[in-house]
Structure formats: C-alpha cells, structure tokens
C-alpha cells in the first residue's frame, strides 16, 4: 500500500514537472508540419552558409537559425506573433545553445521552423516566442495590430497602394 502511494506520488511529480518544463507546440494544421523540440546553437544564416559573418549575428538584421549537433541547419522563420519572425526571440542567444519548441515544416519547396517557445536551460520553462511585439511596442507604442500601425509599412502602402500598383484601389465593400 505504501509502495503504491510512493509510485503515485512519483507519477504526480513527474507529470507536474513535465507540464512546466516542456511546452508542447500547438498544431496549426499546416501541410507537412511536425511538432518537435530542436536543440542547437543560434547562428546567423549568411555566416553559417557562406562565412560572411557580422558581429552579434547581424544585430537583428539577418535571418537566424539553429545549428543542430548533427550539423543540420534549420532556419527559424516564424514566431507566435502574427506577421512576425523570430529574430527578436533568438538574437540574445547568438552563439549559444538553446532548445526551441515548435513546428518543423518540411514542405517540398522549403523546410522552415516555426518557433513557439525557447529555453536556454534544459531544466527551465519555455518562454513563448513573442519578443517581436514587446520590442515593436517599445519603439512605437501600444497597438492592437502592430502591422496596421507600423510606420514603415504605412509609408510603403501609402506610396504604392495596398495592391502594389499606384492608382489601383480595391473595390469598395458592398
């Protein structure tokens, strides 16, 4: 009886620790997606592929990825924030090992990783990959939809139109 209680307690502890330390990636039902945790070193893609390196992995201006222990390079393309990539989430870990929880999408046209959570400490919790919004709001102020409030985006759309052709406007909604 006592042994059974001990096993039950051990199972409960295991369940709780698993829930706090492993964030299972949310499925998006994207063709070819697969939930995985990648473990690797954060590197700048241009540096990794071509040896064309810059200090601090390009200081947030370059595409980043994970160099896995088996030598595979996975480009990390997307974060949890709508219309935003993961560079703000990764740049602070340039050259360091991390674990990234997310969706590996092995589309025949291209293989990309959509990161949903990051941790540097294997025993710690995953931090949601949402840094883009924090950084954007620090520069531009709060906005419900960052993309509609982005000054650079609005400059480009004002110049060329929402369809990309000057003078061509979408039909008004009925």
């Amino acid at each position, binding site marked *: 009886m006592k042994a059974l209680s001990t096993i039950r307690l051990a199972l409960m502890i295991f369940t709780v620790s698993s829930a706090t330390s492993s964030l299972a990636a949310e499925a998006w039902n994207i063709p070819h997606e697969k939930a995985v945790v990648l473990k690797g070193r954060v590197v700048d893609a241009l540096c*990794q592929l071509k040896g064309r390196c810059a200090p601090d992995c390009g200081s947030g201006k370059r595409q980043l990825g994970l160099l896995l222990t088996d030598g595979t390079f996975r480009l990390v393309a997307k974060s949890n924030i709508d*219309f935003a990539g993961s560079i703000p989430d990764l740049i602070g870990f340039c050259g360091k090992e991390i674990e990234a929880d997310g969706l590996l999408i092995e589309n025949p046209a*291209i293989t990309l990783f959509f990161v949903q959570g990051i941790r540097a400490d294997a025993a710690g919790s995953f931090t949601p990959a949402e840094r883009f919004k924090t950084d954007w709001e620090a520069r531009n102020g709060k906005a419900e939809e960052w993309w509609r409030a982005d000054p650079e985006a609005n400059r480009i759309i004002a110049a*060329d139109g929402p369809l990309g052709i000057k003078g061509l406007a979408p039909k008004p909604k009925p």
Partner: protein
Amino acid sequence: MLAKHRCDGKSRPFHLDEGSRMTIMSQWRAALIVSSFIGMAVPAAAQDGMRVTVTGEISDTWCTISGLMFAKGTAHHQCAIWCALGGIPVSIRDAKGNLYLILKIGDDDDSASNPRVARMATHEVSVDGELLERDGVKYLLVDRIADDKGVITMTHEEYGIQPFGN
C-alpha cells in the same frame, strides 16, 4: 505606372583601410578575439554555390507554405509587406513553385525587416546570384536585380485583399 526599382550593386573585393594604424596581423588577432567572445567564428560548413538567374515573384515565405491564405500578386501585396517588415524570410517563387530564400541583395546583407526588400513585395523580378542548397532550403545570395516589372499578377478581384479583406 509601375514602380521601378533597379539594383546594380556589385560585390566589392575586400580591402583594408589604408589609413588604419593596425597591421594586418593585429587586425586578424583582434578579429579572432572578438569572434571567440561572440561566437561568430567562420563555420567549417561555409560553401561555394552555383551561379544562377532566377525569375519569379517576391513572396512571403511563411504565407506561401502555410497555405493559410492566397499568397500571390495584388491580393497579397499588403500582407507580404507586413511579413517582410516583421522579419519573416522573403523568397522568390519561380513558375515551378520553387522557393529561393533571399539572404542578401548586392552589398546589403540585411535579410530581416529590410524596407528596401519590403517595397518589392509581390514584384515580378529577375535576379542574378549564387544558389546555396542546405537541409531543404534553397538560399539565394542576390548579386543584382536584372529586372523588376513591379506587381503584374492581378489576383485581388478574385481573392480580395488577403488575409482580412482590407
């Protein structure tokens, strides 16, 4: 009138600043010290690619593969600007559906949130550059944009403005 943009940036040979007091050796020593601190040592896997000319539409890579919306032409122009400025990788999609992920254009190594690239969203372009293939991705180092026809694929009448209709 279609927006025209031409980039004739050519690779410049590496040269030392003649006015610098540092010798070649001290520059290398400084570079090694810096790289050892910030983990930017030149990787052993650096490779030479293949010279290519690619023709296709400047596309938002995520929207193209996620299948969550119609990601072509005028209907997707605005969304592609948002994604490019949000730092999502930008690719050229050719007529066969191949995606070539852009890592640089000319001497401009900024491949994330680059307004110059965002302005070309959904443009039909022809570029010359170097193709590097690695682990399921075709990376493109663009040397020059040989032609930019602007946005020529009219999709908004059928699909509206993606993804929200405005």
